[in-house]
């Protein structure tokens, strides 16, 4: 493999240690160099795997030997003991997990537990934010249960709504269900697609939001 001026900078790039002009130069280079692009992908995979490893004490202190081998005046930065220098990026499943966990947090259990008269200030923005890259929440796997909770609540509450409204709500829930189904089918064909994972999570969030709103509305008319 032919090395160029950027090949040895890829690791610094991943660690975010390039300044803005260097980063821009490398990114411009990556757009045209397939080899560097592939190497970057490999490096990222290594970093990702490394993160999953447990820290272990070395069998002996290697630092003295390493320091002796370094050229004078270029001692690398050391981090305080116990402080990890690892930078975390998240895999697609983690992203999906983060998104759907947020859905759950704003979902059935939360609705049932937290519903109370709130001021506009408190209510503003209570909707779950659209899932975004970088959110870290442990995936609980309870989204379907949350939706089921809200649907059960809706079945009880919808008696307080007129039949036309109930029909509209059910039609719109069906629209969301079709969108969820579309996303699931697409995901089966392309499980690693980050966009599809986020889209599914976001669409499920929409269903939770609608159920919650209608339940709120019905409860307010009791």
């Amino acid at each position, binding site marked *: 493999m032919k090395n160029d001026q950027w090949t040895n900078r890829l690791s610094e790039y991943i660690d975010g240690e390039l300044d803005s002009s260097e980063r821009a130069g490398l990114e411009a280079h990556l757009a045209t160099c397939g080899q560097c692009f592939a190497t970057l992908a490999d490096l990222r995979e290594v970093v990702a795997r490394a993160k999953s490893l447990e820290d272990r004490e070395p069998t002996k202190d290697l630092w003295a030997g390493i320091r002796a081998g370094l050229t004078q005046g270029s001692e690398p930065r050391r981090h305080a003991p116990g402080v990890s220098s690892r930078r975390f990026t998240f895999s697609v499943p983690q992203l999906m997990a983060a998104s759907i966990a947020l859905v759950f947090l704003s979902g059935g259990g939360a609705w049932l537990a937290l519903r109370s008269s709130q001021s506009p200030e408190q209510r503003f923005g209570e909707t779950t934010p659209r899932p975004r890259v970088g959110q870290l929440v442990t995936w609980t796997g309870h989204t379907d249960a949350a939706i089921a909770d809200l649907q059960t609540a809706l079945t009880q509450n919808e008696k307080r709504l007129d039949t036309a*409204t109930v029909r*509209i709500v059910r039609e719109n829930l069906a*629209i969301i269900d079709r969108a969820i189904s*579309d996303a699931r089918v697409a995901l089966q064909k392309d499980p690693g697609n980050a*966009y599809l994972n986020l*889209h599914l999570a976001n669409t499920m969030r929409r269903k939770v939001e609608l159920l919650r*709103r209608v339940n709120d509305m019905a409860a307010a008319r009791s």
Partner: protein
Amino acid sequence: MFATLAAAMLVALAPQRQSDTTFAVPAGASLSVNNFGGGITVHGWAENRVKVHGETGRRGRVEVSIVGSTVVIKTGSREGAPSVIDLDITVPQSMALNLSGTYADITVDGVQGAISAETVNGEVDVRGGKGIVTLHSIQGSVTLADASGRIEVNSVNEAIELTNVSGEIKVETTNGEVTLTGIQSSSVDAGTINGDVLYEGTVTDGGSYSFGSHNGDITVSIPERANVTITAATANGDIDSSFPLPMQPGPAGKHRKTFKIGSGSARMELESFQGDIEMRRPQEMRDRMEDRKRKHNEHDNDFDNDNDNDNDHDADSDTSFSFDLSSVSAYATRYAAAYAPKYAAQYAAQYAPRYARQYARLYSKHYKDSFRFNTH
């Protein structure tokens, strides 16, 4: 003074078919209105008084009271099913509003306070508002113009339109378009399941913008000197821009691309499952919207639907009338489509109260259990 009023004031506007009352309120007072069916219209004026006008019909009643620092207006019926009541309320411009209804259209104009408006079956149309502005409807479009602050707008089964709005903006519907124009914001989150999303507004350094649809196109304007990183993703649509975009490296496929413009400090996410994603220059977007509006108006005025922009409301006298007059059913269908909404509304307003009452009496004994009040 206000405390005295609170204890003393309870005005029941009935049994006249329409009534007015006007009273002074101190600075900082708010308004709370609940009207089951009809309309809630609120205007702002430069006086420290509230004026309430109610079109109540014979059975309807309007109660005005003051609780703490809140003017509370409730409607009801003296007998039987809820009445359809139109409220026209004039308030100090800075008054905060909390408006709710079930079969109610809500209209606000010229108020510069916080606004909360929620209806189930009805449109919400607000011009003005500052601070926290939250507008909700299930079955009805929601429009907001000339507002600023923290904006949250929801519908379920209709479109949402925001014009000349600034601040933190969250907009969501399920089955309808989202149109945002003249927006000044560093934080916009707008989405729908069935419908297009259109954004024309600022892209501020460090801002956050997110637009999503499942079954619709996403069209956004990108100002010339914007510094933004755009992530565009679609499963079954295309991604298109009317200007060159520097693509970012990454595992981009046909359906997911990242572009960096300028420093890339703002973040913009554009996502549509079935639809296309388009990025346009602001002027191009404005031209397109003008064109769309013009076509929409032409369509509205072209009552015979023959695309001749005849602007006539009397299609059968138009010499350029082009469809086949021998086809009576086609003619009837088109004519009905053109005039039905107008005359249905007019005749419904005129006759509904009378016949609703008459038929309710007639059938209530037989269908007591299944009777549903359902008027608008």
